[in-house]
């Protein structure tokens, strides 16, 4: 099975993606991750204004069968939360790179992007 891995994003080995606009980035989980989890039924996210730290837990995503921590690809301040997921967590399955996004972060450091995986490297890691 092949999974969608958009080239315009960077990735964590733990299957989170982030956009690379250095002003405000979006964060979500990958197509591979949502497929592995199965039916997503619950998402726990931070509130606007909360601080997140690169590689540290910022929330939880739960499917019918599993619980998985969400790790932040960057450090910074949460400036938006996708509250649509609270009522419709299935958006994570249906559109993981679009409507299923989770938080927007104002990064505190540009340098953290350098350590993230490229789309090619991430694709290699899941194949």
């Amino acid at each position, binding site marked *: *099975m092949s999974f969608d891995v958009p080239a315009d994003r960077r990735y964590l080995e733990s299957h989170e993606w982030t956009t690379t606009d250095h002003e405000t980035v979006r964060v979500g989980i990958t197509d591979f991750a949502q497929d592995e989890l199965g039916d997503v039924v619950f998402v*726990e996210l931070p509130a606007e204004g909360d601080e997140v730290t690169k590689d540290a837990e910022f929330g939880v995503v739960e499917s*019918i069968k599993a619980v998985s921590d969400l790790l932040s690809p960057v450090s910074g301040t949460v400036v938006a939360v996708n509250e649509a997921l609270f009522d419709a967590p299935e958006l994570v399955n249906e559109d993981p790179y679009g409507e299923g996004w989770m938080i927007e972060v104002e990064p505190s450091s540009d340098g953290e992007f350098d350590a993230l995986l490229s789309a090619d490297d991430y694709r290699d890691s899941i194949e």
Partner: protein
Amino acid sequence: MGLRKPPLHATHADRDASFTEFGGWEMPVEFDSIRTEHAAVRESAGIFDVSHMGEIVVTGPDATALMGRLTTNDVTELDPGDTQYACITDEDGIILDDTMVFRLPDEDGQSHYLFIPNAGHDDEMYARWTEYRDEWGLDATVRDATEEWAMLALQGPDAPELASEATDGATTDIDRFKAAFCDVAGVRAFASRTGYTGEDGFEFLVPWDEAETVWSAFDCQPCGLGARDTLRLEMGFLLSGQDFDPEAEPRNPYEAGVDWTVDLDTEFVGRDALEAVEREGVDERFRGVVLQQRGVPRHGYEVVDADGEHLGHLTSGTMSPTLGEPIGLGYLSDQAPPGTRVRVVVRGEPKQANVVTPPFIDT
């Protein structure tokens, strides 16, 4: 040692099923999505490969005595074609396994039983049966047929019609909790009108090498162990190794809410301990909880009262696909009977929940 595989493993892999290890077997956990498979069983029909379940056959002049002394229910009530749910307990009355006992048509004038240990328990149960048989000097033959027969479960409101079509009507005569031999797509099978989903349906035992023919005879949603778990959870059915386990979760049938499987008028291993339990009562009972706040209850989560005092813990939990509500099963103090408001501690945060008596849904 490698994982055991059901005879349909390659068929499931070709269908892009995902697999999981369960009881030493590599079994399909999901074909399409748990939600889709679950809904198919509640609304129409689904078929499960449950070939990881054990099959032990017991025959001979003392077969009834051996079965009766190793299971908690009264096996003498069974006529050929009858089925019975029972527990298998140790000397202390702790559940080692739960099982369906089938009385088959007599063989050579002797009583003939089949019982179904849970996945991975067949070796242990075969050993238990043969060791006690020898110790008690009983004349009975015990055979582990786990890898002779595949087991398929056709479940859902449309199951009777589908089964009738595939068996030329033979299954329409089988009442609930009864069993009979019949032909499925030309294959000799043993069919029981039983299941683990709360829906009407059948479980078919078929020769290992002919599983493919029977599996293909039913045009309905293939379902994995994921949906099987959410379906049984909505019904409050026990899962061996999780809701009870002699090591991790030692429970007697009274605590586990299956005291109706215990017949104290019979003699069986664990009887005296269970008579004392019945007399003295239990401190904790198997209950359901429904969360009133966002979150998903899971195995191992603590249950507390409004002051944070311990009331018990959960052994199973999920987001109910039918109800769209978070439900859990577990052992709660008698101070938290159905109707009590409690808190389930979800990753450190107490969430409001109500105690209920399973099942969670009407089927």
